[in-house]
């Protein structure tokens, strides 16, 4: 027998089925129905905003990132999630700038994939909200024809927005907070309301999340603990003052909570590595969301809640180190 060219590798010689790119691209794939339902409600503007944000992310990753990093799919996720957190009428150039900022300052500045502290998509959105507050809170309502663009999609960079005759409407949370007008629960669940692209259909996002959780591409403990905390806290407040505070289901299905809890809080890089830590992380986000929504200056608090808890992750990780096998006491990691 002649000796073939043998591979000499360290054990283990086999590996599990998932790789980082498969996880990333399966997340991208799970977003397809979410994008489809958003397109159904908001028309072709959705695709323009998403393409703008994703292009910004990909171009930046290609120029400044690791060679071949586009292939791992993480920049695509950042772009798509950023796009889904934006209103349909946003000028495309703003979405592009947001995507570029998200990758450059949300990820690459920390050292690229796996090194960032904050969720890049949310950081990009926070930047856009600070830079273009009016554009980010303009929620156009449906025009006459589905084919018509909403708002200012094609505005030129830094040109003052055209005065459009499109009507704008408020989001359910805005209505509740500033006008004490509740929105029907069914409308909230299927997404027939105003809001950002991905803030609409909670049911579709939940199904996509369930698929990812089954494939272990997200840790189910994070969305579960967020939902539980928000539901319990909101129900408590609702029983105290039903007119001022919405019920638990309305809180769960309004705003960006579904998108945030399923897709942004579960970003593996910026969430705790331990399961106990994931529970703490989710409870913290849930509490902050309700606090910001009811007592903060903004109608929606998911973005800042997740970003704040992102900053806590190293501490959560340190506090929830697993108990060593056979040891009586807990051992903490050194600084």
């Amino acid at each position, binding site marked *: 027998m002649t000796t*073939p060219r043998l591979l*000499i*590798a360290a054990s283990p010689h*086999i590996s*599990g089925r998932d790789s*980082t790119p498969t996880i990333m691209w399966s997340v991208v794939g799970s977003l397809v129905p979410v994008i489809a339902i958003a397109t159904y409600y908001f028309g072709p503007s959705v695709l323009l905003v998403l393409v703008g944000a994703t292009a910004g992310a990909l171009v930046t990753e290609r120029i400044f990132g690791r060679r071949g990093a586009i292939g791992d799919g993480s920049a695509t996720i950042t772009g798509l999630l950023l796009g889904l957190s934006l209103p349909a009428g946003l000028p495309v150039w703003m979405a592009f700038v947001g995507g570029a900022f998200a990758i450059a300052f949300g990820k690459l500045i920390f050292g690229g994939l*796996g090194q960032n502290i904050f969720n890049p998509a949310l950081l990009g959105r926070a930047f856009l909200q600070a830079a273009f507050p009016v554009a980010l809170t303009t929620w156009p309502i449906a025009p006459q024809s589905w084919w018509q663009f909403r708002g200012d999609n094609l505005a030129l960079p830094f040109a003052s927005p055209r005065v459009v005759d499109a009507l704008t409407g408020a989001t359910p949370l805005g209505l509740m907070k500033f006008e004490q007008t509740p929105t029907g629960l069914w409308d909230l669940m299927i997404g027939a309301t105003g809001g950002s692209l991905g803030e609409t259909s909670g049911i579709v996002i939940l199904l996509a999340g369930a698929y990812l959780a089954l494939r272990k591409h997200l840790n189910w403990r994070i969305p579960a603990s967020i939902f539980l905390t928000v539901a319990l806290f909101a129900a408590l407040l609702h029983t105290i003052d039903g007119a001022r505070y919405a019920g638990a289901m309305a809180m769960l299905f309004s705003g960006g909570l579904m998108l945030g809890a399923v897709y942004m809080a579960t970003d593996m890089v910026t969430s705790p*590595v331990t399961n106990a830590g994931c529970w703490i992380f989710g409870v913290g986000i849930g509490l902050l969301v309700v606090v910001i929504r009811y007592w903060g200056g903004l109608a929606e608090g998911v973005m800042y809640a997740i970003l704040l808890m992102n900053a806590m992750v190293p501490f959560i990780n340190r506090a929830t180190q697993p108990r060593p096998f056979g040891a009586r006491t807990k051992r903490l*990691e050194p600084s």
Partner: protein
Amino acid sequence: MSYQLKFRHGVHPPDLKELTGSIRIRRVPFPDEVILPLRQHTGKPAKVIVRPGDRVERGDKIGEADGYISAPVHASATGVVRDIDLWPHPDGSYATAVRITVERFSAQAPRPRIIPDWRGLTPEQLVRAVQDAGVVGLGGAAFPTHVKLTPPKDQPIDVLVINGCECEPYLTTDHRTMAEYPDRVHLGIRIMMRCLGVERAMIGIEKNKPDAIAAIEAARPRDLDISVHPLTVKYPQGAEKMLIKSLLDREVPSGKLPMHVGAVVQNVASVATIAEVFETGLPLIERIVTVTGHGVMEPANLIVPVGMKTRDLLDACGGLTPDAKEVVFGGPMMGAAVADLDAPVLKGTTGVVVLTESDCRPVATYPCIRCGHCVDACPVYLNPQLLGNLAMVERYEDMEANRLADCMLCGCCSYTCPSNIPLSQLFQASKLALRKQKAVA
């Protein structure tokens, strides 16, 4: 069974035991030469006692135990010592080995010998006989069995745990041993219980071997307290600490041995070998080896003389397929890839697994995305993610503070890592680096 027969964490690799799980054990023809390294066990290598040109018969001692934690080596075939020199060892190094040219047309019958009746021997004499027969653990680590059989006097042992888990994918040696030689396994258990003076024995077998469980249960002697426990199929169920946790719900403390929680763990193949010593009088000169994997033509369970070259063994199984890529000694999770097909089968070789290109771990790695899958997989509850980061920047003392010593290199973290980071390899290297640092200091 009042408790849950489980340990926490671990991984579920596809077991692929169907390749050889139902194939009967058969004897492989003697090769033209056997290579017997003097280092085949944990501890000090044996001291050679033959010289080139000597004629040895099958079963003759050729290497003497050098100290207490050591084991003798015996000729596995009748023939002439050709030379004593460095030879490729399955661990990748070169080790001193006795090379025996096997006598052609020999009946390979061992010298007539007196087989002691084990019933008439004291525990000390039994241990002595096991020691002289060169019996070591056949589960992979090859720890000299007589050491296990003589725990310190101040350490009470209340249970003998027999490891029939065989949680490594592909391998079916223990499986076939239990299915085909259940009486031998039970005789070995009886002898071990006598050596240790324990009243109770527990056999843990993963549920994916129903025929082995049935055979062992059917052959169970009624006069002894021996119980058979089907266990969850999960890697590394067969690791000592995990098995004790599953069966007894006792956790072996960090840095301690199973005997510190009153248990002695022995693998079924070793137990059967102990019985064989008292059945045939022959020392450990042959063992059952699973030759399997999609890269080998005719997978089989074989009785192989220790010292048979990998090349000869693979030839006896129809050779390699054209897409064979990696030859692994032991299971694919903890086994070692052999660099040279001249490396011989050792006492501790449980199997030879030939992987094809598509079975092997890919080469590309990605940055750690902190998914936490490794933390969820580690059976001894370490944080491989943190340890991996520390290893990459060579902060070995910090790794030690995070209990690197507890890592048993089971490979669960590397297996599950989506970024394909070679965590267990990093830990192995870090353990070595730490040892070196300490030796210098």
